[in-house]
């Protein structure tokens, strides 16, 4: 079957239930995807079976079901899932997918929050879980070469003994893979001072959709020619499958100090963040939890957040002991200036870990109190934090939702969490509209659509808010240069061209983790 027919068939399977309101796609209702529909060419499956051996290919509907979701509210079912062990196997898989003209999609741990690892148009889903070896550790030059399936935290654990660590630390770092981090250019709380994934990757091995294996960059800095590594990191799996990654390792700081500043108003907290930035103080992390969120978290994690406060800031400074002391003193001063009621300093590693446990497990805590929630990811200039948080509260009131806020305040990366009940169809539509309002405001104040979760299939339709048709056209041409015909991870990042008539169908949201 031709790919175009296949896409048409998929779309017929997901008839739009109801009308589209404005720009935002609507939820189609559960149960419309029949599980017995199996469309992939049997010859392709047989060839994949032969290539990967027993257990290397999943194709039964009940097995595929597991791969229909990631950490987002999106959904997309592959026709088969493959578990290669080598670059060579991936290259052959890519050749087969090309030969049979089926989509090809890469996937790490599936913790992504924008649908990047979902087979939006079906096809072969390449899962990297068997490619999870650390290939080389070079302590002296502070480099590691890893396969894409290595779990983020495992790399840090492997090099801690040498006083090193891998800096990008997304909240899902106990599960997410470095391949996924590279695809999405993942961030995390400590990226404020240390930078995001792209600042820590120096080289990649790629498999192009046609099956060619190519190395770009390397262990040394300044690749010769165009910075292809810089383009590939954050390309959300739309340019190539990444099969090997060379990363920088950072030196563990000599001293760390973690402060918790407690506020009676959200404005005082956001103004503190704006002033810390304006004074040129660079903490290694600066996270904010608003009153509602910190209470929910406290009830679950017992991290020691004061339940009666309107907001807390979790601020960390690290570096040389003398620098940490100076920075902590400066931060103390700013917090006091903006009426922090209390400033606690974690006395030891246990107290610090507990505070971070509160931050990193927040989404689990929220899952306990709301039937569903929709995590947003927007970025604003940091000086606009106070007004943006006020606007988000207003939007919550206007649409009738509780919106919690727990986010990377220091770099202006917001994560408003809209609480709603997925069983109520009208509520879901309203939640999506409220999320759209928030994104629009972020763009209005000079911000961007996503700081670390990616565009994926969640926000491709919002891209025109930020980019002109000429901008998007150039992005399409660059994608085409690597991924002719867009068969690799189709339907992501760049909205389909004008007049294509594609109708977005958003599935039922599931509880997410971030």
């Amino acid at each position: 079957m031709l790919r175009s027919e296949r896409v048409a068939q998929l779309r017929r399977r997901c008839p739009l239930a109801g009308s589209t309101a404005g720009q935002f796609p609507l939820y189609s209702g559960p149960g419309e995807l029949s599980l017995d529909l199996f469309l992939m060419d049997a010859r392709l499956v047989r060839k994949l079976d032969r290539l990967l051996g027993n257990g290397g290919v999943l194709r039964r509907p009940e097995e595929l079901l597991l791969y229909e979701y990631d950490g987002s509210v999106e959904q997309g079912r592959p026709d088969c899932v493959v578990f290669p062990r080598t670059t060579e196997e991936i290259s052959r898989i890519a050749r087969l997918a090309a030969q049979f003209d089926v989509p090809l999609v890469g996937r790490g741990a599936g913790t992504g929050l924008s649908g990047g690892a979902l087979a939006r148009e079906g096809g072969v889903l390449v899962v990297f879980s068997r490619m999870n070896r650390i290939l080389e550790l070079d302590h002296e030059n502070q480099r590691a070469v890893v396969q894409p399936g290595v779990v983020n935290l495992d790399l840090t654990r492997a090099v801690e003994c040498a006083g090193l660590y891998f800096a990008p630390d997304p909240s899902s770092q106990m599960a997410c893979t470095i391949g996924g981090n590279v695809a999405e250019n993942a961030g995390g709380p400590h990226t404020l001072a240390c930078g995001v994934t792209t600042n820590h990757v120096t080289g990649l091995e790629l498999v192009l959709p046609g099956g060619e294996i190519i190395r770009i960059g390397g262990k040394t800095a300044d690749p010769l020619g165009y910075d292809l590594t810089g383009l590939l990191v954050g390309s959300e799996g739309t340019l190539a499958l990444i099969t090997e990654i060379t990363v920088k390792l950072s030196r563990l700081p000599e001293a760390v100090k973690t402060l918790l500043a407690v506020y009676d108003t959200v404005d005082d907290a956001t103004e503190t963040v704006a002033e810390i930035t304006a004074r040129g103080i660079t903490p290694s992390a600066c996270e904010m939890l608003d009153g509602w969120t910190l209470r929910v978290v406290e009830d679950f994690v017992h991290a020691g957040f004061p339940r009666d406060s309107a907001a807390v800031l979790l601020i960390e400074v690290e570096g040389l002991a003398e620098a940490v002391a100076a920075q902590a003193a400066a931060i103390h001063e700013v917090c006091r200036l903006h009426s922090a009621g209390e400033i606690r300093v974690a006395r030891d590693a246990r107290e610090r870990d507990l505070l971070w446990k509160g931050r990193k497990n927040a989404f689990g805590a929220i899952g306990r109190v709301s039937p569903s929630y929709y995590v947003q990811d927007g970025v604003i200039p940091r000086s606009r934090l106070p007004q943006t948080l006020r606007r988000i509260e207003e939007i919550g009131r206007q649409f009738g939702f509780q919106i919690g806020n727990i986010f990377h305040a220091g770099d202006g990366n917001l994560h408003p969490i809209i609480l709603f009940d997925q069983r109520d169809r009208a509520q879901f539509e309203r939640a999506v509209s409220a999320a759209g309002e928030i994104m629009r405001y972020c763009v209005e104040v000079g911000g961007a659509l996503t700081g670390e979760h990616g565009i994926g299939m969640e926000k491709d339709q919002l891209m025109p808010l930020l980019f002109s048709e000429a901008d998007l056209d150039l992005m399409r041409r660059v994608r085409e240069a690597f991924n002719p015909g867009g068969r690799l991870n189709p339907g992501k990042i760049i909205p389909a061209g004008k007049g294509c008539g594609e109708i977005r169908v958003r599935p039922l949201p599931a509880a997410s983790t971030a």
Partner: protein
Amino acid sequence: MTPASCLSRLEKLLGPGQVRSDPAERASYAVDGVLPSAVLLPNDPAEAAEVVRFAAAEKLAVIPCGARTKLGMGIPPSRYDLALDVTRLNQIAHYDPADLTLSVDAGLPLTQLSSVLAAQKQFLPLAVPFFAQTTIGGTIASGVDSPLRQLYGSARDFVIGAEFINGSGALTKSGGRVVKNVTGYDLHKLLIGSLGTLAVITRVNFRTFPLLPTRRGLVASFSSEQGVIELRRRIAASPLALSTLEILSPQMARLFAPINHSLAKPPLAPLGAWLAGSAWHLCAGFEGHPEVCDRYARDLSRLAEETQAVSAHLLDEAEHSTLGHSIGEAVPLLLNASPATVIFKMSLLPSHFDSAFAELREITDRASLPSALFARGSGTVYFALLPVTKDVQTFSRLARAATAVFELAACEGGHAMIPWCPTELKRSVNIWGLPRPDFALMQRVKTAFDPAGILSPGRFVGNL
């Protein structure tokens, strides 16, 4: 050559005085001896885009330029019709000190921007060569690096967005003005070091950095290269986060002598006697509160002693700044030092400095040419051959040495290329070094940006 009719149409497209074709003017825009038929001075990005659209339609080759301090980088252009001078695009579009973000036109001189930032106690870590003349666009398009990359990274780490004209003449952008952003492809990263072969950069967005209260340094001198290499290794394994770490060979230190400094344009302030021309030097820079700087000074002095430095001189703020400026201008100093300077840029792993330095000495001996070297702590090595004459024999020796340097870098797991050398040498040496496995991808990227192949044709890797 551009037909006269094209020139008159360009004159209609732009205002009076914005199209120049007198020989003297054209000569001042020469690239490796190739002269453009006309020089165009657009007043805004829209005019510049019109020029590129016109050029694309007429298949005219365009080379964008700013202060023209680095037009000698790259392979000689295969075609060159129009010089697109963007120095009239020279405004700061947005600067919000409280956000530490900046959006600035490509033609703005870096010095002007630096004083605006300094007034807000901020800076960009771009202590790049030709600092006094260079523009923002030229700095980014040439990909020159700065000693401050030790702590702050290179341009790819703090350029957060850009606006540019692609080869079809469309004004496009990528990234944005926020410090954390994964919206769309990071196309601006491709422009860094692309020598104008992908697009005409019209605006660059940066994150800026706060100036810390004090900046100081230490210069440790050693009788051999082993000493500097060992000190670098110990610093890297310590918790010290230096802002600069540069290794200078004795010949390089001699180049920083007052006499050379006074000949530089503009002249550089003289350095103290602590930079002796007979020793290897490790120059460390650090910054922070006074008590933080004291800690650095203490620890570095101890490490220098442990590694048997002949001397270790602590630099005060003024001395540190003067030395920083000299090191930043090392490339122009090297270019002034010989009639046929060849500068190699090698990307190596620091653990290979030992063997690489030894090999470079052998290459120097074999070529029997004077040489000088400076290396950044993170692994970038600049190696210069400085012949005293400029003749056929010299060029053949230079060519042999170039092949040896390229192979040496590859053997050490890195790579090398020649950012600066006489045009004559470019006839016999591929300045971009050995062939790359990812060249096919670069070709496709070039075609995506510049389908008609009119932007700086021929200058880049593989004559892209």
